[in-house]
């Protein structure tokens, strides 16, 4: 008779999930990530609704990546109606997206991951001893939030990104101020990278992983793309994702699990982007990558933490470049009129936690079909696999220690459980 090891509510992640490890005579028998956050039926509730109203609701799937949801839904909608935004609008949307990336990565690394390594149960109690780290965390987080405020109207659930462009654009001085703040933040991002390069990677979970990421547009490491790259060398156009990513309902979770070509778990996220697209990095991030490549191993989910830190450096430099490109074209119109025609559009982007896909079908100005698969839903099967590997290697540890290690595996993925539970169609 074995008592199952259970974590009822995984702490320091977004959303409500638990871990259950069941032991048998031959070691670990079963590992389940119980996703207990209630279902929110986002696809179902927006079907039949006006496109603009549905677009205001989709970001509410998740607060940690609301800009990612907004911008991916917008691109799918614009593709559906046959509209392509001007280059400078796309550049500013990417800057808004990068704001989300900076905030989310800083938050995850310092406040959700670091306390485990330093032996704290929460980040707030670290303040006395790790004042500098908390200050850096807040500075980076505030920068990301402010970028989303300026371009998106607020840090959570941005309303200022709309069909055709933006409701209102910041003035030139504000964009220059943003550039200045990004430059000031670059050394903080580098400090973060050095800090996370020293953390333990837990070899117990090492093994081959299939990674998926977008093939970035314009051959520059980035967020948008029209093809998906798989680490086994395969590429497919985003419109064909249903052939290669199959979702299944599992009994212990309100969130579905995704499989590559019908059977294989896969991973998405910062380490997957690095695994598939590192050659497209440039600037300081490129130098750091070549210097530290041994630590950025695509075979270890813990490398996702360091990959996020590398991305902090990269995306800060990228945002500076995008702002420069935009300023060179100043002044610019905030939006163009969009004629809402019938059609279907698919958008894949790189949310902070990995691939996010929206398919929207529009008929008579209303949503006729919606399919959304979030990074966490894609990662769940792989995450369970890695928790299992960790549990197998530590099955004789004290339950408290095993629980912590299992949680740390989950936290390395930076899951967004709320996101995963708005659920998609079969």
């Amino acid at each position, binding site marked *: 008779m074995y008592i199952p090891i259970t974590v009822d509510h995984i702490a320091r992640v977004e959303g409500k999930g638990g871990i259950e490890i069941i032991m048998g005579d031959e070691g670990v028998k079963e590992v389940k990530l119980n996703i207990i956050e209630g279902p929110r039926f986002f696809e179902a*509730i927006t*079907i039949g609704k006006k496109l603009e109203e549905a677009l205001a609701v989709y970001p509410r799937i998740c*607060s940690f990546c609301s800009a990612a949801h907004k911008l991916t839904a917008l691109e799918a909608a614009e593709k559906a109606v046959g509209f392509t935004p001007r280059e400078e609008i796309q550049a500013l949307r990417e800057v808004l997206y990068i704001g989300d990336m900076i905030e989310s990565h800083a938050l995850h690394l310092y406040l959700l991951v670091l306390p485990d390594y330093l032996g704290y149960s929460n980040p707030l109690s670290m303040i006395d001893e790790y004042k500098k780290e908390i200050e850096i965390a807040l500075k980076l987080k505030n920068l990301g939030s402010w970028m989303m405020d300026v371009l998106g109207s607020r840090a959570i659930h941005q309303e200022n990104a709309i069909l055709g462009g933006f409701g209102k654009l910041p003035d030139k001085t504000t964009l220059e101020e943003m550039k200045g703040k990004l430059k000031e933040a670059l050394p903080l991002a580098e400090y973060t990278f050095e800090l996370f390069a020293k953390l333990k990677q837990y070899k117990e979970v090492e093994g081959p992983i299939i990674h998926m990421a977008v093939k970035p547009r314009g051959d520059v490491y980035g967020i948008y793309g029209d093809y998906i790259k798989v680490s086994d060398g395969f590429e497919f156009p985003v419109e064909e994702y249903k052939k290669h990513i199959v979702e299944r*309902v599992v009994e212990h979770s*309100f969130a579905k699990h995704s499989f590559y070509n019908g059977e294989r778990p896969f991973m998405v996220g910062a380490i997957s982007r690095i695994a598939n697209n590192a050659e497209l990095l440039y600037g300081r991030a490129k130098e750091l990558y070549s210097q530290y490549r041994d630590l950025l191993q695509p075979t270890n989910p813990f490398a996702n933490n360091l990959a996020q830190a590398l991305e902090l450096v990269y995306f800060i430099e990228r945002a500076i470049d995008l702002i420069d490109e935009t300023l060179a074209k100043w002044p610019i119109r905030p939006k163009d009129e969009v004629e809402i025609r019938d059609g279907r559009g698919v958008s894949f982007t790189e949310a902070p936690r990995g691939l996010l896909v929206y398919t929207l079908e529009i008929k008579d100005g209303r949503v006729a079909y919606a399919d959304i698969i979030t990074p966490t839903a894609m990662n769940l099967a792989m995450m369970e696999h890695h928790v299992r590997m960790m549990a197998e290697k530590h099955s004789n540890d004290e339950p408290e220690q095993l629980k912590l290690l299992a949680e740390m595996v989950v936290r390395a993925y930076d899951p967004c459980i709320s996101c995963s539970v708005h659920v998609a169609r079969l």
Partner: protein
Amino acid sequence: MTGKIRIGFYALTSCYGCQLQFAMMDEIIQLLNKANIECWFMVDRDSDEDREVDIAFIEGSVSTEEEVELVKKVREKAKIVIAVGSCAVHGGVQSWANDKKLEELWKTVYGDAKVKFQPKMAEPVEKYIKVDYKLYGCPPEKKDFLYALGTFLVGSWPEDIDYPVCLECRLKGNPCILIEKGEPCLGPVTVAGCDARCPSYGIACIGCRGAIGYDVAWFDSLARTFKEKGLTKEEILERMKIFNAHNPKLEEMVNKIFEEGE
């Protein structure tokens, strides 16, 4: 209150945005010198839902049978219960489809598959327990949190906002999106406090702070204006229901406008 105040933050079904907003206030560091966190899973591993607290913040809508039990437990353990954000106060955007049946939604999304937890249609927290105070918004503004906490910390009670976003928008001197651009702005019936955030970006209010209380949200007169601008009853109800699906007055007042003309 004397000594350290004990706080708990509890999550039901939501996007975690209210907690994120709360956690991300720089001011929270000073505040926490005066507080003990008893339960807050998003930031603290050492959290326990069974501990007693002075102030319980609840985010999210009640959307599973397990969450019904959780809110009842929180009510028993807390002196003051604050419903935080649109989901806890009004049921959230997940209530937008409350004209559809749970079975129908489930089938659209999960087909015939079964899951071992029991889902429910999303409902506001007040449906199950007494709520002492509400923080409106999706998410609430930082100053909403600071005002409520500051007032509680000095032993007083925060006041409700009983005027609309429209007022703040007028004070800012924005052009009127409803009258001048003809867009379906919900500013006239929505609780103020956001400083007319969206209209200031030229975007019509979608009502994320919910309708003003005390039965002063005039759904009927706004519906009449929308009707004059050519919106159908269904369009008006859909828009007003994004964040107000559980409002008992809404349908009745909008229906009245459409019966008048017939």
